[in-house]
């Protein structure tokens, strides 16, 4: 939704400063080409309300178009350099994992105050050396890349948030290079055929790419080994390419798993067939902890039309395309192959906003009464915890919970935490006994002419029950007014009695009068209402 609304409607109240407040540091990212910042001014204001003193390194938000002034207005303090931020912060928020700061000549991890906490992307499996450094600082570290893929954790799933951006940007990048329109048009100068975009891998990034390419007017096809994502692809407006081979592709945690060689060969052939007709191929297939699968072979690239574009979002893990060169845009066999790895940074402002919202959502869960209180029983927090006071906590114990398939920015509705208490069987038993007693009494004492009437009455109740039960809610009011009119049938009761004495016949006439109002009014107003219901 329009971002302008968000800033306008947020009200900022200056919290009272107290000496116990935790200091939260936001250093400038130093990785080459990294333009994001972990906390944006709007979220800095929220963190202030959560009970933090926010300290931001001067210029930390510049690359994402957030000025120091904006942070000051949001209640944050500006520190002159990295050393000052790292030195005083009880909790450091970053995007990239700590690395060597060439300017200062020290590693960022060594700058961390002893016993302080760090929240950032960590990639603990790939960064053993970094973990050792942080452990020496007795640090507590939460990894934003280790958020469990469960429904409840979606609000802090930074990987999904970033993947969404990357998928969008991949389409934009390819469109910028591709020499034609993406959408079809009929113009005075002739009709333009829409471009065909092939998306390989329908995770969050893939789905975002499908949605973006579709909205630009392209014909979008998507391929994924997991048939479960078919519905998601179709919901984004893409056509799902069904590849049939006797092997299921869904691995643990909703990610794709690695397949056998025979499978891979068949898959490559299948993809090559579709790539030949595609103008743009966007590849997003990743397998956790493994090099990216080579889905697009050199042969497939050769067969593609001249002027086509490949964007390889797996370039960091070796690429899905055999010809991808990391961080480079190259042209091979007339096909432009883009191997960029910093697409999220290209939308630094958007990416920073989403990332910092993820972080604030996390801290809202972690903070209890102004104190940093990790809940190790919480599946989400435990899953993210890499180091606790220097002690290695990663990987977390395996959980039995089956992960949900990744979803693009569409949190699944949590089941209502509400259960009806089981009704006691006694009222119905008592009711049955009472009914039985009543029937026996009826059989013994009632006059014979009552029974046929009762029969009719009970059968009519049952009929009414069955006839009315399936009424659509839209017709509740008309149903009510028609039953109202029908209950005007009491008019005949009045009519039968008009033959009585003087007073009696007048009273009966009054009964007839009001009941006729009911009949006429009820049917006519129902007719009026029903006339309005149209398709």
């Amino acid at each position, binding site marked *: 939704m329009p971002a302008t*609304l968000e800033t*306008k*409607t*947020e009200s900022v109240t200056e919290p009272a400063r107290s000496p116990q407040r935790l200091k939260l540091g936001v250093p400038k990212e130093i990785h080459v080409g990294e333009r994001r910042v972990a906390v944006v001014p709007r979220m800095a204001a929220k963190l202030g309300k959560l009970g933090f003193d926010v300290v931001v390194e001067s210029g930390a938000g510049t690359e994402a178009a957030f000025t120091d002034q904006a942070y000051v207005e949001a209640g944050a303090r500006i520190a002159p350099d990295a050393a000052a931020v790292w030195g005083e912060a009880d909790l450091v928020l970053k995007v990239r994992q700590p690395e060597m700061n060439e300017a200062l000549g020290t590693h960022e991890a060594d700058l961390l105050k002893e016993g302080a906490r760090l929240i950032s992307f960590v990639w603990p499996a790939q960064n053993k050396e970094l973990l050792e450094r942080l452990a020496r600082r007795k640090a507590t570290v939460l990894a934003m890349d280790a958020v469990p893929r469960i429904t409840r954790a979606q609000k802090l799933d930074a990987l999904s948030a970033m993947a969404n951006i990357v998928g969008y940007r991949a389409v934009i990048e390819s469109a910028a290079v591709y020499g034609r329109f993406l959408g079809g048009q009929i113009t005075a100068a002739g009709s333009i055929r829409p471009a065909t975009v092939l998306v390989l891998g329908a995770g969050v990034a893939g789905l975002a790419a499908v949605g973006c390419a579709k909205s630009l007017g392209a014909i979008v096809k998507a391929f994924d080994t997991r048939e479960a994502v078919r519905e998601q692809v179709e919901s984004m407006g893409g056509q799902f390419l069904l590849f049939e081979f006797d092997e299921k592709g869904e691995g643990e945690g909703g990610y794709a798993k690695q397949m056998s060689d025979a499978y891979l060969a068949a898959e490559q052939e299948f993809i090559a067939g579709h790539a030949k007709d595609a103008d743009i191929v966007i590849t997003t297939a990743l397998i956790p902890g493994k090099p990216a699968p080579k889905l697009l072979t050199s042969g497939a690239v050769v067969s593609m039309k001249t002027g086509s574009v490949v964007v390889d979002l797996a370039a960091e893990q070796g690429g899905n395309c055999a010809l991808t060169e990391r961080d480079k845009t190259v042209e091979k066999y007339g096909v432009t192959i883009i191997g960029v790895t910093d697409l999220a940074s290209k939308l630094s402002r958007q990416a920073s906003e989403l990332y910092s919202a993820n972080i604030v959502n996390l801290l809202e869960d972690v903070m209890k009464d102004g104190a940093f209180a990790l809940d190790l029983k919480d599946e989400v927090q435990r899953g993210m915890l890499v180091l606790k006071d220097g002690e290695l906590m990663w990987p977390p114990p395996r959980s039995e919970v089956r992960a949900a398939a990744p979803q693009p920015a569409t*949190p699944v*509705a949590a089941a209502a*935490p509400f259960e009806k208490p089981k009704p006691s069987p006694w009222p119905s038993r008592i009711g049955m006994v009472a009914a039985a007693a009543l029937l026996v009494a009826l059989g013994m004492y009632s006059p014979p002419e*009552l029974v046929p*009437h009762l029969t*009719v*009455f*009970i059968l*009519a109740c*049952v009929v*009414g029950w069955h*006839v009315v039960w399936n*009424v659509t*809610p*839209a*017709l*509740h*009011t*008309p*149903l*009510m*007014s*028609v039953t*109202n*009119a*029908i*209950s*005007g*049938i009491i*008019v*005949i*009761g*009045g009519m*039968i*009695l*008009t*033959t009585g004495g003087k007073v*009696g016949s007048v*009273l*009966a006439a009054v*009964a*007839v009068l009001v*009941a*006729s*109002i*009911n*009949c006429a*009014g009820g*049917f006519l*107003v129902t*007719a009026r*209402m*029903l006339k309005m*219901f*149209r*398709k």
Partner: protein
Amino acid sequence: MTATLPNVAYIVASFLFIMSLKGLSQPSSSRRGNLLGAIGMILAIVVTTAKLWAPEAGLTLPSISSVGLLAGSIAVGCVIGAILAARVAMTQMPELVAMLHSFVGLAAVLVGIVSKMHAEATGAHAGVAHELEVVIGVFVGAVTLTGSIVAFLKLRGSIGGRPLLLPGRHMLNLVLFVGCIVLGAIEVQALGSGGHEGLSTGLLCLLGVTVLSSILGVHLVAAIGGGDMPVVVSMLNSYSGWAASAAGFMLSNDLLIITGALVGSSGAILSYIMCVAMNRSIVNVIFGGFGAEVQKPGTAIAAGSGGTAHETNVQDVSQMLTSSKHVVIVPGYGMAVAQAQHAVREISDALAARGVSVRYAIHPVAGRLPGHMNVLLAEAGVSYEIVKEMDEVNDEFPETDVVMVIGANDIVNPAALDDPGSPIYGMPVLQVWKARNVVMLKRSLAAGYAGIDNPLCYRDNTLMLFGDAKQSVMKLLAAVTS
């Protein structure tokens, strides 16, 4: 004419009524259903008139004056009914329905009393069972009569919507009920004593029952809060059916019994549906005062008012709506009060013309009558195919860009799901907060009809557009179409 012929005609009429109710369950067959009902009614009246004229049926030929009285009453009643039906505004449907219920109640009381007088005059002995039927008929009729009048006044706003909670109200109900039983018992006993004196005692007792049950009717409905009116109205609908049925027992008329039973069970089903929609026990509704626990302003207000509401303006909302793909509109009683349904329809048409998919989400108890919102939207010309029920639409909120809540409050209150301390906890609600953005059109931050603060107002994805619903909607319409 033989005595059997009218009874056969009554079978036809009963059949027509059943088909009428069946027709009313689907929009496509509803108009035919209404027509069948009307035909059944005309048939019943014509046959009954003919029966009165048939000496074979064992009745004397009616005098000219009584025929005139009969024809006059029916004619006048039909004219009044027709005028009411033509004049009533769709927003006033609840009042009309309540008023019509009271008429059935009145007719049932009169039929009971007259039938008693009739028996007295002719000295006919119909037996204990008949006397019991009379007492029950008068009792149900009087409760329906006065209960409907109170409901009517509440709906019109002539008396406040707050529940009247007398101390010891359950005791009072019990006393009134027992009083009716005692008087009824005396009435039935008086039958046995014979003679002129005994019969008039019986009549007096019957009048006593009428008075006591009238008070009971007033008290039962007065104890129910205005927000729970949909249940009350459908309960009274049910009662009016039982009253007609009781009259049928009195007069040994199967048509009345069948028709009354049909209406009674239909009303009972509607009440049950409404109760489920509000997570209320039907027993509490019948015995009244179930709003009692709701009215603890101290705890209720404290529960959700921590937070800042985000105010927005018409331009921003308009931009938001026009740049959306999926919009859901949630109308509530506030829209009915402001008569804003036509302007709302124009907004949704304008959005649809821009390619935005617009749907309406109706909570089962939105408004003051079951299905009230559907009628208003139909009046404004909204196609019923884009009007969705709660269960259909709740799953779709996560894919919805903007939900516009117009004059609704409790039916979109998240506290019903996540705050066990909330008085409406457990009531199924429209989970609008799952949409990307919610715009609430509201007069102020005041609590809804149930007197409960709404945490939805303070959510981060909720924007408040303050002001009178009609004016806000008109401004929004101008902004969207410009």
